[in-house]
């Protein structure tokens, strides 16, 4: 029988630990165990055979760490031999009923954006191993010991795109129930089910006792067969010998208890377990009644670490990452000012959004690559799940693929052509998809017709095996100003989605008030009405307090806010602030000296009632900054205070800039800053940037790990005459020198100043820099000298 015919229908057993056994047979610390497939096939066959004989139904070929990074030249041989050894072991053990797993562990590299392995490279690495493993005759793919959701996704996609074998996945949680990059049982389950794996579970990291609560959580949320392969307890060491603290009998007693009380489909072991453990485990559990996994019907969107469930209480989706009708946003997209977009995301997270919609479509922009870049950068600074919002199918696929987690997708609709494009993508990558209740005939005027379209969409999705749990019906909020009945139709639609279709709904709430004044009144009340009529997801601007007020009031009143936790934390400050704060406003000078950004902005607004912005800057802002800067140089004032003052000055500038429509002040000079190739530490450079900007310089910030050629090209294109380079490590001073040499050859009219932790005047002279700046203030003074504005 095939594995899929048995998985989830009867109890199956994996094998146990390999490393400790191989070590006892002579494998040295740091020696790659996979080399033994070729050098000691007899011992690998022996290892596999012992597990087949112990009763394991699934035995791992010795390929855990086999990838082209570790075996650039010999990978095919290593993998092929591993599977052949396992086959030989199975033959010798007379276990033709059992299965050989191509065992895939982590690559050993951390993926971008936090690490340096590109996602597609990770997929390629896994594909190569899988190709050889499948060719050699593996029966299934077991992806195990995964501690990062993104790498897991890469491995699963590689398997799906390379073969049709069953895909089993297990991950390693820490004692708090988290993966190393933050994933939880709930978030990982949603992502893996979305990707269409055949089973999921846990292995390694902890013993059965510590893993139990996380296994329980998996069984509560997952519809798939669950795998449990713990270590033999926790690692201990005695007289210099490492061991795991659970005997086979103790291990088995915990495993038996779990098998009795939780619906677990596959049992086995990991580090420290041996064929003895597996044999005893099988003896103790084989006759226990088997409980098959059941369908859970959950609608979940995730990031790498957070899971948001749709349906329990209304979900707030922030709509601000969208250029429609926003001049500044459009400009940011055109100028590739990603930081502006990231700040839009951070503001909404702060305001209480649960999911962020991401729309970066603008004529003249490569939407697919922009979408992927923005989402990746968002995911490097915040953990909210994202909603991919695009009508471009190419962008949709690229974004779904590159997203770390299970995304929300906006959108599909009832048009056959759209469904033909979108549903295969949802099936392949997993997503909760927004389905607009419209089709070829346009937007229906009645709820009846909208419900009909919703049914049609569900039915079409089912053909692909996409459950209606993964579809959220958009009831279409249309402006009441053009059709006074439209709100009623929308509310009826979402009510019937809930009551008749037992499905989930979503609305772009603010459309309702288009063309009318004081829109937030209509929007916030419409939101309350919609939630009362069953709205599952509200796409809104969470920065508007009226909207979040509706949400907080609704969940508090509807018994959806346990102990009023959300309500209390949202309004914790309300009672106290109005009385105290207003009576004493700080002057701009004092606000900057104290480093209070909000007060600085307020003081600027106040001051501009009587003076113009530039005067304020020259009379208060600059003197305050100078004083703080002097204190820092003298060593009486502390770096964070300098930075706080710099932040405060920036917020004052922002106010002046706004009132003057952009041109707040003359620019003293334009400067490129970059952390050099190979170096990823850029805090120092960022500090210098803030200070330079405060003193009226325009900074082109090229970021970190910047190749010399890129710096040169930017300097030529932008006609720049001063470049600041930063390096933290002695090893990257080399790239600093390379950059300087390149400039001397290609653009000798450019001055280069250098700084960074390892830099000294001597060092700077040695590599031919024009100046050495010890800190941010020195850089400012140097720039002032260069541009004659002291």
């Amino acid at each position, binding site marked *: 029988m095939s594995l899929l015919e048995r998985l989830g229908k009867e109890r199956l057993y994996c094998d146990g630990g390999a490393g400790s056994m191989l070590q006892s047979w002579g494998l040295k610390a740091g020696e790659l165990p996979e080399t033994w497939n070729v050098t000691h096939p007899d011992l690998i066959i022996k290892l596999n055979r012992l597990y087949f004989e112990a009763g394991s139904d699934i035995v791992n070929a010795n390929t855990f760490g086999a990838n082209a990074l570790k075996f650039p030249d010999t990978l095919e041989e290593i993998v092929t031999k591993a599977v052949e050894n396992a086959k030989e072991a199975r033959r010798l053990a007379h276990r033709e009923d059992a299965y050989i797993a191509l065992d895939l562990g982590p690559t050993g590299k951390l993926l971008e954006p936090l690490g340096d392995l590109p996602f597609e490279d990770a997929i390629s690495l896994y594909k190569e191993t899988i190709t050889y493993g499948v060719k050699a005759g593996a029966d299934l793919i077991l992806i195990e010991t995964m501690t990062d959701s993104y790498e897991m996704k890469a491995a699963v996609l590689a398997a799906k795109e390379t073969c049709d074998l069953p895909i089993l996945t297990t991950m390693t949680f820490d004692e708090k129930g988290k993966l*190393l990059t933050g994933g939880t049982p709930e978030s990982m389950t949603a992502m893996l089910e979305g990707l269409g794996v055949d089973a999921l579970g846990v292995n390694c990291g902890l013993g059965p006792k510590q893993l139990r609560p996380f296994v329980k959580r998996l069984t509560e949320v997952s519809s798939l067969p669950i795998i449990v392969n713990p270590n033999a307890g926790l690692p201990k060491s005695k007289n210099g010998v490492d061991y795991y603290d659970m005997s086979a009998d103790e291990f088995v007693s915990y495993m038996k208890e779990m098998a009795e009380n939780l619906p677990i489909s596959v049992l086995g072991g990991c580090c420290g377990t041996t064929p003895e453990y597996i044999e005893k485990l099988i003896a103790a559990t084989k006759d226990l009644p088997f409980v098959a996994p059941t369908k859970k019907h959950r609608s979940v969107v995730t990031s790498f670490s957070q899971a948001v469930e749709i349906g329990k209480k209304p979900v707030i989706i922030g709509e601000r990452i969208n250029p429609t009708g926003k001049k500044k946003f459009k400009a940011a997209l055109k100028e590739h000012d990603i930081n502006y977009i990231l700040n839009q995301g951070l503001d909404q997270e702060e305001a209480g959004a649960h999911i962020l919609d991401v729309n970066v479509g603008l004529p003249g922009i490569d939407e697919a690559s922009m979408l992927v870049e923005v989402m990746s950068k968002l995911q490097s600074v915040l953990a909210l799940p994202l909603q991919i919002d695009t009508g471009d199918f190419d962008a949709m696929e690229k974004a779904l693929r590159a997203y770390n987690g299970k995304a929300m997708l906006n959108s599909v609709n009832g048009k056959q052509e759209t469904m033909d494009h979108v549903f295969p993508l949802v099936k392949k990558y997993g997503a909760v998809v927004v389905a607009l209740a419209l089709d070829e005939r346009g937007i229906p005027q009645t709820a009846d017709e909208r419900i009909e379209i919703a049914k049609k969409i569900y039915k079409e999705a089912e053909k692909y095996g996409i459950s209606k749990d993964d579809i959220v019906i958009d009831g279409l909020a249309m402006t009441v100003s053009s059709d006074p009945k439209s709100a009623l139709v929308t509310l009826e639609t979402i009510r019937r989605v809930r009551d008749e279709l037992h499905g989930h709904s979503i609305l772009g709430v603010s459309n309702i008030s288009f063309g009318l004044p004081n829109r937030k009144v209509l929007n916030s009340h419409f939101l309350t009405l919609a939630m009362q009529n069953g709205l599952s997801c509200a796409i809104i601007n969470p920065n508007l307090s009226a909207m979040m007020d509706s949400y907080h009031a609704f969940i508090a009143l509807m018994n959806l806010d346990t102990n009023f936790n959300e309500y209390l934390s949202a309004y914790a400050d309300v009672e106290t602030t109005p009385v105290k704060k207003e009576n004493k406003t700080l002057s701009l000078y004092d606000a900057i000296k104290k480093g209070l950004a909000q007060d600085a902005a307020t003081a600027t607004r106040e001051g501009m009632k009587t003076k113009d912005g530039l005067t304020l800057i020259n009379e208060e802002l600059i003197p305050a900054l100078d004083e703080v800067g002097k204190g820092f140089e003298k*060593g009486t004032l502390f770096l964070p205070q300098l930075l706080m003052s710099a932040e405060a000055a920036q917020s004052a500038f922002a106010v002046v800039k706004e009132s003057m429509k952009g041109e707040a002040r003359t620019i003293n000079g334009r400067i490129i800053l970059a952390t050099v190739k190979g170096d990823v530490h850029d805090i120092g450079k960022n500090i210098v940037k803030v200070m330079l900007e405060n003193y009226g310089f325009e900074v082109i910030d090229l970021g970190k790990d910047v190749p010399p050629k890129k710096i040169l090209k930017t300097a030529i294109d932008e006609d720049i005459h001063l470049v600041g380079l930063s390096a933290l490590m002695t090893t990257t001073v080399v790239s600093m020198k390379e950059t300087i040499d390149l400039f001397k050859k290609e653009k000798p009219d450019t001055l280069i100043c250098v700084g960074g932790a390892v830099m000294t005047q001597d060092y700077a002279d040695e590599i031919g820099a024009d100046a050495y700046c010890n800190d941010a203030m020195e850089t400012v003074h140097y720039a002032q000298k260069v541009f004659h504005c002291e």
Partner: protein
Amino acid sequence: MYPIRKSEVLRYLGYRKSMVITKETDALVDECINDLKKVIQPSMTYERFPIVRHDGILDIGGMIIDSKSLSTNLKDCDEVFLFAATAGIGIDRMIHRAELTNVAKAAIYQAAGAEIVECICDDLNDQLAEKVKKEGLRLKPRFSPGYGDTSLELQKDFERLLQMSKIGIHLNESLLMVPSKSVTAFIGITKSKEKQKSGCALCTAKNCTIRREGL
């Protein structure tokens, strides 16, 4: 939880006794330390190796190291612990985030993160010291790859010998660790009772902004 020493966080930020810390700055430092406490995800691993010496060259677990500084550090040691510890990737996210919104916070997160991983190392250090005490042995001060005349290339050996990726520590092309708040080190195991200089006292960078005062 780890006893995070605010004085150390301040030192990493370049604090000198001559400086006055304002109320606002002080509050921000506290706030940042609290932010990080919520995202710490410590993990660590270590292995014990015998030290083999040929003509002043060290062989530790197959690592061949020709280094005066490390040889001095491991003087009178027959064995050594190699360890790796990290405070987790959450701190890096917080730093990236603050770089976009508030560089003062970013700088404080950097400093607090350094102190946190230091605490994690000290804690592990204590546990290891306890372990060897029973054998009548003591530990030498920690020595990390890149100190003195050692090459950062040693990181690759640490990665291999300790399977560092298992605890979530990865090396980038420049041999720096991700998460950034991670430490690898040798800790010599010795019978000798001789006191040894460590930390700033050992370091030759006399003008370093974070050098302990009074040395």
